[in-house]
């Protein structure tokens, strides 16, 4: 009798769960918000173009109109901070991995829990655990609270011209940074014909601090800060990484300190350099015959490993909801974010040129076959460093210091040691003023 009772309860429970799961549809959830206009901030990058391609489907299903403004990356934080402080119009917030501490810490982002606790808004198939843990933790989480869902996801990858490598006698890419500089680079550099082995985008700005400076710290066992948030730049490991970058410059195109992403990608696409380390998002550019001359020779691998192992660059953006938006706009924004980052939309998003943060889609044999960047990217995300760049609110200020002195180092205006000392002193001054050393702020990065 008792067995039957438990069986009935279990059956009823399962039935109710499945009914509620079946009951939730995007169309019905969006019904109260039909005609709502929401505003999102997008960048001029492939992941956003992909989302724009998919937008009509969402708008047709929900009747919610998603307006978007495309801003240059360098202005996107300024645009949003001014909007937050001035009481503006943005509903869907774009959060770079290095802004999550600032945006969430200031209360500008609505915690995801607000929506996941609301059965009318939460898709039962949301499955937060279906995101790569490193992405959800880095871009979306601050202090154990989730504020955004990974949307435009990057890992640093080694893109190379396999034809050029083969002509130089290499049938595989370099596995380590040491190999890249000492074995591959001499054979791939022909300065007379303006052909270079490698290009590292190093233009002043976040490109210098994130793509160039930080990229050479981690693989060599170095880091920006130690456990007590003091500068670690003059440690033997950090110095080794920075010195390595300086030595590698002789195999890079002249004027590399003025190379941004576009120039580095273009240098490989035009066949002027043999290898670059760039974000996964640029695969669609490099494999597009209208933008690249090397589509047949393009190959992708993980970034080379250093003495500390594989420590590739990590970057990307989450989408979150502005805490100051009206309730209706918050709900409509959440429905959009939940939909565009869903497991269901992961494949269409990739096919439209985006890079999804969902694990499941990359197990698809068809996706693996069509997109050669998938395997190295998944390997990178499985072994990456979540705090590749500190995510606290002071990072933009530190980034300015690193960008200025990092380029000065590369130009030879200051020595590696002097540059590291200057950055360290300025950095500690900023962090001291912020309250990290007197215990008024937790050491969270």
């Amino acid at each position, binding site marked *: 009798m008792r067995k039957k009772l438990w069986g009935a309860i279990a059956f009823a429970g399962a039935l109710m769960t499945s009914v509620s799961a079946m009951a939730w549809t995007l169309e019905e959830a969006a019904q109260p918000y039909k005609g709502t206009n929401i505003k999102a901030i997008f960048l001029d990058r492939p992941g956003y173009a992909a989302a724009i391609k998919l937008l009509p489907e969402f708008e047709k299903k929900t009747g919610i109109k998603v307006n978007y403004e495309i801003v240059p990356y360098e202005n996107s934080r300024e645009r949003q901070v001014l909007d937050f402080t001035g009481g503006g119009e943005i509903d869907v917030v774009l959060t770079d991995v290095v802004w999550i501490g600032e945006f969430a810490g200031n209360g500008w982002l609505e915690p995801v829990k607000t929506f996941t606790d609301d059965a009318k808004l939460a898709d039962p198939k949301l499955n937060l655990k279906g995101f790569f843990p490193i992405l959800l933790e880095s871009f979306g989480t601050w202090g154990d609270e989730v504020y955004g869902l990974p949307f435009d996801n990057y890992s640093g990858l080694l893109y190379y011209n396999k034809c050029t490598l083969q002509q130089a006698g290499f049938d595989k890419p370099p596995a380590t940074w040491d190999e890249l500089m000492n074995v591959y680079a001499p054979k791939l550099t022909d300065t007379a014909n303006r052909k270079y082995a490698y290009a590292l985008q190093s233009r002043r700005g976040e490109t210098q601090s994130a793509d160039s400076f930080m990229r050479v710290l981690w693989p060599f066992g170095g880091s920006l800060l130690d456990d007590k948030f003091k500068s670690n730049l003059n440690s033997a490991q950090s110095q080794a990484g920075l010195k390595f970058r300086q030595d590698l410059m002789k195999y890079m195109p002249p004027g590399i300190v003025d190379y941004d992403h576009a120039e580095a990608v273009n240098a490989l696409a035009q066949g002027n350099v043999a290898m670059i380390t760039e974000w996964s998002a640029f695969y669609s550019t490099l494999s597009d015959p209208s933008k690249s001359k090397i589509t047949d020779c393009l190959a992708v691998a993980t970034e080379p490993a250093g003495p500390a192992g594989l420590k590739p660059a990590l970057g990307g953006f989450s989408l979150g909801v502005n805490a100051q938006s009206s309730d209706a706009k918050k709900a409509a924004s959440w429905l959009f974010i939940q939909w565009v980052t869903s497991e269901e939309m992961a494949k269409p998003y990739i096919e439209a040129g985006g890079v999804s943060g969902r694990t499941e889609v990359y197990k698809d044999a068809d996706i693996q076959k069509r997109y050669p960047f998938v395997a190295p990217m998944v390997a990178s995300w499985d072994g990456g460093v979540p705090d590749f760049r500190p995510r606290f609110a002071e990072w933009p200020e530190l980034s300015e210091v690193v960008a*200025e002195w990092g380029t000065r180092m590369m130009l030879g205006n200051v020595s590696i040691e002097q540059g590291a000392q200057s950055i360290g002193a300025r950095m500690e001054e900023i962090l001291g003023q912020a309250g990290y050393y007197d215990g008024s702020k937790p050491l969270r990065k």
Partner: protein
Amino acid sequence: MSSGTQPGTPAKPAVFPTMWNNKRAAFAFLAPAVAALALIGIFPTVFALVNSFRRYNLAKPRDPTPFIGLDNYLTVLYDPSFWGALGRTFMFLVTVVPIQIALGLIIALLLHKPGLSGFKLLARLSLVIPLATAPAVAGLIGRLIFNRDFGVANAVLAFVGAGPVEWLGDTTNAFIAVALMDIWQWTPFCALVLLAGLTMVPTEIEEAARLETKSRWQIVRYVQMPFLLPSVTVILILRTADILKMFDTVFTMTRGGPGAATELVSVYIQRVGFRVFDQGVASAQAIMLLILTIVLARLYVKYVYREV
């Protein structure tokens, strides 16, 4: 009758009502301009002045914003990066403005010569094109012109057997490239202002001078130059103010780099104000820059300006 004037005697002019009407008319004409100026000029300046005495970071909305006296000004005074940027800006000023005035004068004198009126009209119109270009666009064009691999600058150098030059990746060359773009954009302005100054020279004096001497230089130096001094003063004041607040071209072209090679003072203030969001220190920097501009303008008027 109520006015008290007798028939046959001429009516006294109604002084007060006329003055009142005139004042009302003047007020009506001036009010919109004054209101607009107050809204977009005076209010932000006063707001910046108040902010310059407060600790105020936009990105830290939970922090208090107390008045801290002159602390922000002291921070600026002891900031080597600010002085570095200011020094670079003056270097830029003394590099580009004399060249712009010299080239502008040559163009103005050519356009002032009699004859070829159709050609000169075309030349005058084409001078407006660089002026009409948005500075941010000029910076983007500069980025293409000085591209090492496919830029026009290196193509021209290759044509004469020189180069290629690393323009934007080298500290000195990047400074030169930004200066060249500024010279391209603002020389026409100098030419047009100087041309307007040349039209002030009475033709009879110019003709008399031509009968006295055949030296072109002497006519420029002793006849035309005195009439040009007010124009030169205007150019100096406006170009100084422009260069002290020059941001768009540099930001789009080099972003202040490489290193800090092209970080002019406005680029630095933008970094402090809109990357670090320290409105207090950025406002103090901006106010100091405003004072500097006013002082320089007074010096130009005192030492350069002469009434003819």
